[in-house]
């Protein structure tokens, strides 16, 4: 419809083919394409070439022969991975850590934002916000270092427990403590920062809606339930889809740093395994296959959740 309307007068004046006019536009704005060029090259070289490089998962990659010359082996590496004794442990650890992270990490920032939003003392609100954002900027290495010093046999936590007469716990050398420490340190670091988005969504709620609710005798609790929560629901849905779509991509760095020889049975996840067999063991093809398996599951999850979100709430990522 639109194109017809636009095409008509143009044809009357002079018949310029469409291709020509957009080329003209490109030429006219050639500088903009030069602006874009380095970034385009960057994405091709460091993102799309590696996607092509994934082919080595189906080869016996030889660095001298390259991706184009190495011999093909089909699904051999995948079969080897599925049949390896670590497969189920790895999958279980990866899924368990990410699901737990989602289970706690998704609702907590929403709760904090809703409660912060109810504080009427602006100065105190600002103070709390400043404090809870701060850990977001601590590096993973320092965060894990903090976990090590606090949870060591004579660290802060054990000294505290000993006041109550408890025996010191060797947190970092017990597999059972890996996941709780991983999740809780993540909550400590990211809850405040994750709440920002919800606070922004809450700030967008018109005060008149709240006033009307107060007039009708709604308590603060009722206003949270019936005004605030519906207001942040769309934001929450999108963030939920995004985080489910990243379910398998939980952090390599933190898991790797938190691993000790004694807790590695609970802490080995697919990304750390890929690093160990691929870069430390130089089994490029096998590790690429494991990585691809991870990426494919992740992509399927994202696609499925996005579809579900679209059906349920009418809004998805695409």
């Amino acid at each position: 419809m639109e194109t017809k309307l636009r095409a008509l007068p143009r044809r009357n004046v002079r018949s310029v083919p469409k291709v020509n006019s957009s080329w003209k536009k490109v030429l006219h704005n050639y500088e903009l394409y030069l602006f874009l060029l380095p970034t385009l090259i960057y994405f091709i070289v460091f993102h799309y070439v590696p996607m092509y490089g994934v082919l080595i998962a189906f080869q016996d990659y030889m660095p001298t022969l390259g991706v184009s010359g190495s011999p093909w082996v089909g699904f051999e590496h995948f079969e080897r991975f599925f049949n390896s004794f670590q497969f189920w442990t790895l999958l279980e650890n990866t899924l368990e850590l990410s699901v737990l992270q989602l289970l706690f990490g998704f609702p907590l920032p929403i709760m904090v934002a809703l409660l912060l939003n109810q504080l009427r003392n602006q100065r105190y609100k600002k103070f709390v916000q400043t404090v809870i954002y701060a850990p977001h900027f601590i590096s993973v290495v320092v965060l894990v270092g903090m976990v090590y010093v606090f949870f060591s046999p004579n660290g802060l936590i054990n000294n505290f427990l000993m006041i109550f007469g408890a025996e010191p716990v060797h947190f970092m050398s017990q597999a059972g403590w890996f996941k709780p420490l991983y999740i809780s340190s993540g909550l400590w670091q990211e809850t405040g920062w994750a709440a920002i988005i919800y606070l922004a969504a809450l700030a967008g709620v018109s005060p008149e809606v709240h006033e009307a609710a107060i007039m009708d005798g709604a308590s603060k609790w009722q206003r949270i339930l019936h005004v605030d929560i519906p207001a942040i629901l769309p934001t929450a849905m999108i963030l939920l889809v995004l985080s489910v779509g990243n379910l398998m991509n939980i952090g390599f760095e933190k898991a790797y740093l938190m691993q000790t020889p004694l807790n590695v049975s609970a802490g080995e996840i697919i990304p750390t395994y890929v690093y160990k067999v691929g870069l430390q063991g130089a089994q490029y093809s096998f590790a690429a296959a494991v990585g691809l398996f991870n990426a494919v599951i992740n992509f399927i999850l994202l696609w499925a959740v996005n579809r579900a979100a679209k059906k349920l709430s009418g809004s998805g990522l695409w």
Partner: protein
Amino acid sequence: MTQYVMNRSKLWSRKSKEDKIFDLINLLFLTTLSLVVLYPLYFIIIASISNPDSVYNGDVWFWPQGITFEGYERIFQDNRIWTGYKNTVLYTVVGTLVNVTLTLMAAYALSRKDLVGRNFFMILFVFTMFFSGGLIPTYLVVKNLGMVDTMWALIIPKAVAVWNLIVARTFFQSTIPDELLESAKMDGCSNTKFFLKIVLPLSKPIIAVMVLFYAVTHWNSFFDALIYLNNEDKYPLQLILRSILIQNEASASMVGDVESFAAQQRIADLIKYGVIIVAAIPLLVLYPFIQKYFVKGALIGSIKG
């Protein structure tokens, strides 16, 4: 008008018994939360200047005991810390410069409605957020380009972050009016001149946000150095921190002169607290001033994006 405002504030301060209980619980909860976040950070500061024996025995809770700066003295005598600091500053400055230049240029181009194919480019970039070749193929590309064991391996493969590109593009789209461009064009202004002379001066907030976001990423990054660097002289601070904090390698170079093993361990712990502070100092000092920019960046990215 005043009447109305007064009524309004009266309305907001009207509280039922239920609301009062809610406010009390809310205040308690948020205060507890702040303490839970704040206390570990505070404890590290006091532990780093306390007598290591007191910390070990659990006598340090609220105030430093037996103040000593031995930990810091040992840290500053260690060459690795200085080299790491120097390298990290270099990587952060060069890396951020590359990041911000490329991101702003590309984001501006993508924000222009008359850029043919902008949606195609956008999809091309955003797709990489959801699917990637993975660690091994990326490593092989960097290796084949001969970047392994150079600082460029920490900079070029991270040249543009898609999320920041989206944030910057959104900013340009919503703050640079089309009329401005049109009138500049009428005056015969070229695209480059328009970008440099008009767009950039109007974009100080987003430039600040981009610089901060990228600089923090570089300052904190550890993984790239782990996989791409072999030469210890090139190690950034985070890798040095890892060997001291996690691999417990403070002993060799820093505690060699201490006699008993137990005392060595305590000094090593003291060093760990100090090292955390030393690593965090730049941000600790700047944080109160730059916090609002971080928040602004997170908001530009979330609401309109």
